[in-house]
């Protein structure tokens, strides 16, 4: 005879038991026990007395948990691997996204990644910010899935471990080279030279086309804006280097790197390709595209380095190796 209250209870336990084998046997044993206990304690079996026995037996979730004490979704020994692998995958994945955004290439790595073309530079920057958390969650999930399979089927497998030493990335204040007055002099001379060229030609980007005549590489407004941007970046670098004679602060470097990044962002929004003059035999658009991509990557890395340095100096007491 079937009792609804008992069948419902067993069905609930069944729902929580996430194992493939032995489920029916567990449920049959619980059923047999509850019926016998009820009969012995109450002399008869009804829905009402069964309810009392079931309440004493415990809630379905707790019962299922006790049967699954030895069952693990992801083994705890993989906790460190989960974060290391997610970090590595994220670095590669987001690197590909950055490459795709700057080169305007679509990247397909079926069935894992699909990175579409992100449009113009201003659209790409916005999308890159959106991609940041999404990429992390995706990579975290993918690594979880892999570790789940490893836990379930290959418990003895030895996963590769990588010691990642980030010291090379972080400036160590105690070993920081002191700013050099001669280098500063050279930088100031360079800045003066660049300013002189700009004031003389109204641009930094021109070609000599013979008999001392010059030709602009870009249309005048873009040329002026681009030149001023380069001069400003140069000026910030000189200013930062000068400040180091008085105070060493990662915050000043972060501010400088942030400002440089914003200037590069504004350069990317200039639509340089359309502003370039035609020059036979040279693909100026590709050359400048590559140069801007190169400097934007350098600027992004410098900004990240400054950020890591601040975080690291706050957290770091003695540990040198980040695992």
């Amino acid at each position, binding site marked *: 005879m079937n009792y609804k209250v008992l069948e419902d209870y067993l069905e609930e336990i069944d729902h929580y038991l996430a194992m493939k084998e032995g489920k029916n046997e567990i449920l049959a044993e619980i059923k*047999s026990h509850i019926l016998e*206990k009820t009969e012995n304690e109450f002399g008869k079996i009804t829905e009402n007395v069964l309810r009392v026995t079931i309440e004493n037996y415990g809630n379905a979730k707790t019962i299922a948990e006790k049967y699954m004490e030895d069952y693990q979704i992801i083994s705890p020994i993989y906790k460190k691997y989960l974060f290391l692998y997610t970090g590595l995958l994220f670095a590669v994945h987001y690197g590909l996204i950055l490459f795709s955004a700057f080169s305007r290439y679509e990247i397909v790595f079926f069935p894992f990644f699909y990175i579409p073309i992100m449009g113009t530079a201003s659209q790409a920057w916005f999308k890159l910010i959106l991609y940041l958390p999404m990429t992390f969650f995706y990579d975290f999930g993918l690594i979880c899935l892999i570790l789940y399979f490893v836990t379930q089927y290959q418990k003895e497998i030895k996963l590769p471990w990588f010691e990642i030493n980030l010291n090379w990335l972080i400036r160590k204040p105690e070993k920081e080279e002191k700013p050099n007055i001669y280098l500063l002099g050279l930088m100031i001379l360079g800045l003066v030279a660049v300013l002189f060229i700009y004031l003389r030609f109204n641009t930094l980007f021109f070609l000599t086309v013979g008999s001392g005549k010059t030709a602009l590489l870009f249309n005048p407004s873009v040329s002026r804006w681009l030149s001023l941007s380069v001069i400003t970046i140069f000026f910030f670098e000189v200013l930062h280097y000068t400040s180091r004679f008085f105070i060493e602060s990662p915050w000043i470097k972060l501010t400088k790197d942030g400002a440089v990044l914003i200037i590069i962002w504004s350069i990317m929004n200039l639509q340089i390709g359309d502003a370039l003059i035609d020059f036979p035999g040279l693909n100026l658009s590709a050359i400048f595209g590559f140069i801007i991509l190169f400097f934007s990557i350098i600027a992004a890395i410098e900004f990240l380095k400054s950020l890591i340095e601040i975080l690291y100096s706050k957290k770091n007491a003695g540990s040198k190796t980040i695992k």
Partner: protein
Amino acid sequence: MDFDVGKFETEMNRGFLQILVLLCLEKSMYGYNMLSSISKIGYKVEENTLYPLLRRLESKGLISSKWEVSENRPKKFYKITKKGKALRKKLLKIWKTQNNIIKKFNGGK
């Protein structure tokens, strides 16, 4: 300080219950039967603790089981295996050693 004794007791019970079950199953018994026997000697075991434990011991080959119909109801009977007996012997020895150590540190009590 008011400690939650229950959690410590649960931890202590884990090992104790394993020995108790291995001792009980010298003769073939089913779950309810075993609970009643343990209860008669003045010790209470929760049914939702005993059954998962039986399953774990069985999966390690320390006890065996078979379904039989008794009093018009299918019941799962358990019995200790040879491997279980060998382990029981070792566990009892460990338990006695531990008991002696506790006694010595507790002034012979």
